[in-house]
């Protein structure tokens, strides 16, 4: 056997080593519950109307402008379907169809409007996509109950590695996103956010202290960049998970971040030993004195079957996926500058809670033929939420400018030129122009290339706040 062959054999024995299925089953159940709860929340709080059916205009992802926004009640039906599919996922019923449908439906909802983009929903889409290939329904599922032939107490190790890799990417890049002077040197935007929460019980009075913001900023940075290492350590894992829960509970209490903490606490379960649910069950039974301890799952040895071409192809796809997952968050470095300002490469890069940014946008429409000028506020086309997102993201500004041009032309007022007067404050800095007000955006094509009409980021430091109890207010 050549060295190469021995290496390949070692690789496959590592990837195919059987692992207890229990941990991934627990993950499947928890993810299904989260999707159901999240979908029901959207329906119950009226967010389906606010975010999807009420807006008259939807921002599309580059290359996905063909994705239609369904009107009511169809969009509500999609969310109802998501809620049902979440239940099916937890129960492990019609698993393959369920995971495929969940991935498609959940991703569709994300693709309808860019202004609704949230990192954690992108993560859920990815996890659902991965679950299509990870057969977590082979135990503790209605499918396994229906089809005994399907049953298995183990899964190959690659299933766990794949999910662990995905969660690792999120934490590591979320940590690296904090490797900025604003975050580490100025403790912004945390100082802004914490200073606004001084009415919280117990901890509130301290939240506008600068040292608290610095402590929180560095703790957040260290947490994100190191937590995976601690979760991978068998000895430290339980303590690390307590920290995970504590960290996300704290952020949940402090910030309006919805399902994000729950999703991350669930996602971190993939780092646990594959048999942890059985151990907990055994302890519960022991506590209840209901008999002997549960026998551990017997893990069969790896069969020495020859690796098929399909397996190699699968591995190749997984490697490509992994490379993409690393490359996509790094793509912003191709653009240079401050991603928090120009936003090129901001999405899909796990920059969670990385900036406080607000803008004021007005579109100046001119008719070259008549010289007539109109000032169009975004509110003529957008909801408040869309306007908030659009006014700080250049590609959305461009989309709306082009839409306004088309609208004016459709109304018989065109052809027109559209320029944007957009002033943006980043992390409390003085507001600056975000895009060149002299550029006619109506005739600029969107694409992945660098956008020269985005003006340079401000070079001044962010706002420096102080605790207000030091100041006498009359």
């Amino acid at each position, binding site marked *: 056997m050549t060295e190469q062959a021995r290496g390949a054999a070692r690789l496959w024995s590592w990837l195919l080593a059987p692992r207890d299925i229990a941990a991934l089953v627990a993950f499947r159940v928890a993810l299904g519950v989260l999707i159901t709860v999240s979908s029901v929340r959207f329906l119950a709080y009226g967010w389906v109307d606010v975010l999807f059916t009420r807006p008259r205009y939807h921002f599309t992802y580059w290359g996905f402008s063909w994705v239609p926004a369904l009107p009511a009640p169809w969009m509500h039906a999609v969310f109802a379907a998501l809620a049902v599919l979440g239940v099916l996922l937890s129960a492990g019923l019609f698993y393959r169809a369920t995971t495929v449908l969940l991935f498609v439906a959940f991703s569709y909802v994300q693709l309808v409007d860019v202004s609704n983009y949230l990192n954690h929903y992108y993560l859920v889409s990815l996890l659902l996509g991965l679950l299509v290939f990870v057969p977590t329904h082979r135990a503790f599922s209605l499918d396994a109950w229906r089809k005994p032939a399907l049953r298995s107490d183990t899964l190959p190790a690659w299933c766990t590695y794949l999910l662990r890799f995905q969660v690792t990417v999120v934490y590591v890049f979320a940590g690296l996103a904090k490797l900025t002077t604003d975050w580490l040197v100025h403790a912004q935007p945390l100082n802004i956010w914490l200073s606004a929460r001084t*009415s919280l019980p117990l901890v509130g009075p301290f939240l506008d202290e600068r040292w608290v913001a610095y402590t929180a900023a560095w703790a957040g940075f260290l947490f994100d960049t190191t937590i995976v290492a601690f979760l991978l350590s068998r000895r*430290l894992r339980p303590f690390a998970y307590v920290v995970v829960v504590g960290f996300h509970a704290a952020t949940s209490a402090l910030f309006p971040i919805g399902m994000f903490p729950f999703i991350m606490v669930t996602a971190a379960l993939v780092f646990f030993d594959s048999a942890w649910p059985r151990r907990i069950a055994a302890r519960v039974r022991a506590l209840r004195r209901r008999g002997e301890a549960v026998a551990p799952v017997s893990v069969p040895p790896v069969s020495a079957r020859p690796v098929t071409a399909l397996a190699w192809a699968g591995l190749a796809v997984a490697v490509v996926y992994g490379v993409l997952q690393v490359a996509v968050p790094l793509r912003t470095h191709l653009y240079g500058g401050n991603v928090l300002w120009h936003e090129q490469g901001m999405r899909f890069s796990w920059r969670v809670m990385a900036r406080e940014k607000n803008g004021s946008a007005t579109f100046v429409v001119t008719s070259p033929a008549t010289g007539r000028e109109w000032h169009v506020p975004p509110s003529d086309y957008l909801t408040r939420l869309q306007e908030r997102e659009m006014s700080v993201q250049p590609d959305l500004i461009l989309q709306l400018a082009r839409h306004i041009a088309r609208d004016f032309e459709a109304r018989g007022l065109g052809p027109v030129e559209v320029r944007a007067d957009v002033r943006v404050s980043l992390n409390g800095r003085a507001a600056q122009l975000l895009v060149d007000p002299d550029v006619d955006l109506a005739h600029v094509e969107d694409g992945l290339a660098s956008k020269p009409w985005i003006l340079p980021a401000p070079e001044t430091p962010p706002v420096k706040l102080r605790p207000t*109890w030091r100041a006498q207010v009359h």
Partner: protein
Amino acid sequence: MSFPFVPPSGARSTRALLLITALATLGGCKESDRGKDDAGPGGPGPDTSRGALLKATGVCVERTAREFHTTSTALSQAVTAWAAQPDATSLAQAKTAYHAAMDSWQVAEVMQVGPAAPRGAAGGAELRDNIYSWPLVSRCAIEEQIVSKGYEAPGFPTSLVSRRGLYALEYLMFYAGEDTACQGTSPIVAQGTWAALSTEERASRKRAYAAVVAREVDLKAAQLVKAWAADQDNFSNTLATAGSGNTVFPTSQAALNSISDAMFYFEREGKDLKLARPLGMRECSTDTCPEHLESQFAHRSKANLRANLKGFRLLAEGCDENYTGTGFDDVLKAAGAEALAQKMVDRIVAAEAAFPAIEEEDLHQALAQDKASVRALHDAFKGVTDVLKTELVTVLDLELPQSVEGDND
């Protein structure tokens, strides 16, 4: 925030305990520092500036509501007198009372916090729309009421807001034309009932209608005062005590947001509707659109905007004499954002300075004779709203109106 590693051993637990003790000591340091900086025990506590702003805003809104109530009572009396004895003198007195009431109300327009705000807002009771519903107005709806005498019906006080309030009063008192704004589809045109009314009868009904509307406005003004008054519903206290246990404002930030939401009136209604539309900058197919001006009959569009700016300034800078007292600028200064506080005040002063440049009595004439001066006023208003929408909401971490949950990424 937790550290990412909790040592399990006993020795490390001791270290953790020491860390907690150290943090507690730091907390103690803060307490003693506070005693040193401030007026000892009983001095301002945490969240001083925001708490002070909430309290001051409550006082300010209540004071403004009381001022309006005084003028609305005088208005009701003057209109009733005019309706009872219609002559040039009583009409002039009624019109003067209307102007005084509107001067006061337009200040309150920027203070739609709590009871004045729409029902969807925190503590909202929709009192504002019942007093003045612009831009949700309809001259035709009022004219239909004149024909049907709907104002005499018991259900009139709960009828559509477009038939009531200060806009209806403005039309009824200031418009003497014989024409109707209703289209041919309206029954008063289709059936000829508007045209069938004699000039005297129409005028008589207008006066009677006006008296009813003025009384209703005064009642709503009284309700607004009652809602805010410390010895009655005490919404001032609701605002001042925002935080844990407060069902309307569970956090001081939520209360602060409700105030900033109210201040956005200055952008939406002020800059965009009252200025940009008449200037022909939006929703207008001609060079200017004076038909979009707010005050079509009393011709006080300029005065209204000036009062709006005053209301904005009272909240932004302080509600006492010469805009002293606690305002958003004080919160910004207290937080260390002095430059932003100064910028906001400078922009407001610049907006104020744009008014004398409009030499005409009202924007009707100004649009025709000196459009540039009105445009300059619009741009000055934009200078204020740019600061409001960017730096102010960023530094104070305020939410823009009607925002929903997100993860801020």
